[in-house]
Each structure stands twice: as C-alpha cells, then as structure tokens.
C-alpha cells in the first residue's frame, strides 16, 4: 500500500504566517498549490471588496461594544483575519484611541473616515458599500479556514487512489515527526 503524506511543518508558525498573508503558511509548508489557491481567492476577494468601498470600509475604532454597539466595527472582526492587508486599520484605530489629536499616519490610509464621508458613501455607491463590506469580511472568515488547514491539515485524509493511505504529519523541523494521524 502506498502512502501519500501531508507534512505539516511547524504548525504554529505556519498558522501565524497563514494569518499574516493568506497562503503564506502553505508556501512555508511546501504546499504551494494550496498556497496559491488561498492567496488568489482570499486576496482578490479582499482587494475587490476594498476597491468597491473605495477603501473606506475597512477601519477600526476602539469602543466598548456593550456601551456603544452602534459605533462598534463588527465587520472588522472578520476583516482582521485577512492579516497584513487589514492590519493598518488596527494600527490607525489604536493611534487614534491613544492620541486623538494626532493626525493619522500614511495620509489616513485605513483610518476611520470622518462621519460626513461615511454618510456620503451609501447614497453615492448604494449597494456596492454593502457588497464590498461582505467581500472583505468573508475574505477574512475564509482565511480562518486556511489558517486551520495550515495548522491541522485537511479535514479528510483522502487519497487519490482508493488503495492509498494519506497521513498528516506535523513536524517541528524537517524530518522530525511529532504526530502522525490517520496512517493505516
């Protein structure tokens, strides 16, 4: 019986890299095909949504969701998981929270837009604001699946041929097998 092996190199580091840039964790593990698939699907979805909302739909503000639910940026909880592409919003939001009088960095890129700009988006762009928000949020949520795949491997240990077995091997370093699962 032949055995196809999925080597999960350093799962924690791979999961972090998968969060940082979608697909990067899989490139790190040598699973380049899946890396490209995740990178293309997730990043193109995020970028399309970002452009549909003219770059003003990904931002974060530090507020207590229990005291001020209307101001709470619920969508950013999903967008955050796209990683680096959504991280400037968190940085801008944190800077604004710590130093409200300071001008935002990088010409206000991903900073919370002024209220009049936000109010003007909906009448001007109509449904595109909603669609852009959904795109960027779903991109982040999909990256959670990719992060989990980098950490834990695919859900099903299927082999291309029925007689073959597939094993998931987590390794701290190349050649050091820590955990083997599903090998028959």
């Amino acid at each position, binding site marked *: 019986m032949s055995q*196809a092996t*999925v080597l999960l190199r350093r799962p924690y580091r791979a999961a972090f890299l998968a969060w940082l840039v979608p697909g990067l964790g899989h490139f790190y593990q040598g*699973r380049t*095909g*899946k890396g490209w*698939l*995740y990178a293309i*699907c*997730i990043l*193109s*979805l995020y970028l*399309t949504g970002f*452009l*549909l909302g*003219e770059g003003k739909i990904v931002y974060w503000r530090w507020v207590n969701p229990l005291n001020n639910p209307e101001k709470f940026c619920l969508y950013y909880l999903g967008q955050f998981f796209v990683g680096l592409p959504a991280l400037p919003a968190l940085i801008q939001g944190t800077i604004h929270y710590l130093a409200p009088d300071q001008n935002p960095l990088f010409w206000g890129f991903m900073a919370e837009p002024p209220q009049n700009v936000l109010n003007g988006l909906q009448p001007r*762009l*109509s*449904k*595109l604001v909603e*669609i852009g928000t*959904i*795109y960027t949020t*779903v*991109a982040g949520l*999909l990256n959670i*699946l*990719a992060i*989990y*795949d980098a950490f834990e*491997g*695919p*859900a*099903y*240990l*299927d*082999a*291309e041929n029925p007689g073959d077995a*597939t094993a998931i091997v987590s390794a701290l370093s190349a050649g050091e097998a820590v955990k083997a699962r599903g090998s028959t």
Partner: protein
Amino acid sequence: MTMAPANCYWLVLPLVVAISLVYSASRHESWPRIWTHAVRLCLWILGILIGTTALLLLINTQV
C-alpha cells in the same frame, strides 16, 4: 464607481466561487477532490440562492 442595481447581483458569482474553492481546499488535499467538491458546492449554493430569489420574486409579484 457606479453600477446599475441589477448588475450588482453578478457580484455574487466570484464570492460563491471563492467560498467553494477555499472551503473545498480546507477539506481535501488531493486536487481532483478539491475541484469536484468545489464545483458541487458552488452549484449547491447557486441553486439555493437562485431558488430563494425566484421564490421571493414570486411572492413579491403576488402582494
């Protein structure tokens, strides 16, 4: 950027395709299974969306 309201519905296609591909890739490691699962899932989601839209349109034309 402006887009006619009816054209907005086409934007659901890339969303569904991306969801199907990423979900399938997280389930399987072999490419034939990923593609097969993705196509099946894509058709399922689109079928449900089209069916639901048709039902809502039917109800809306009756009221």
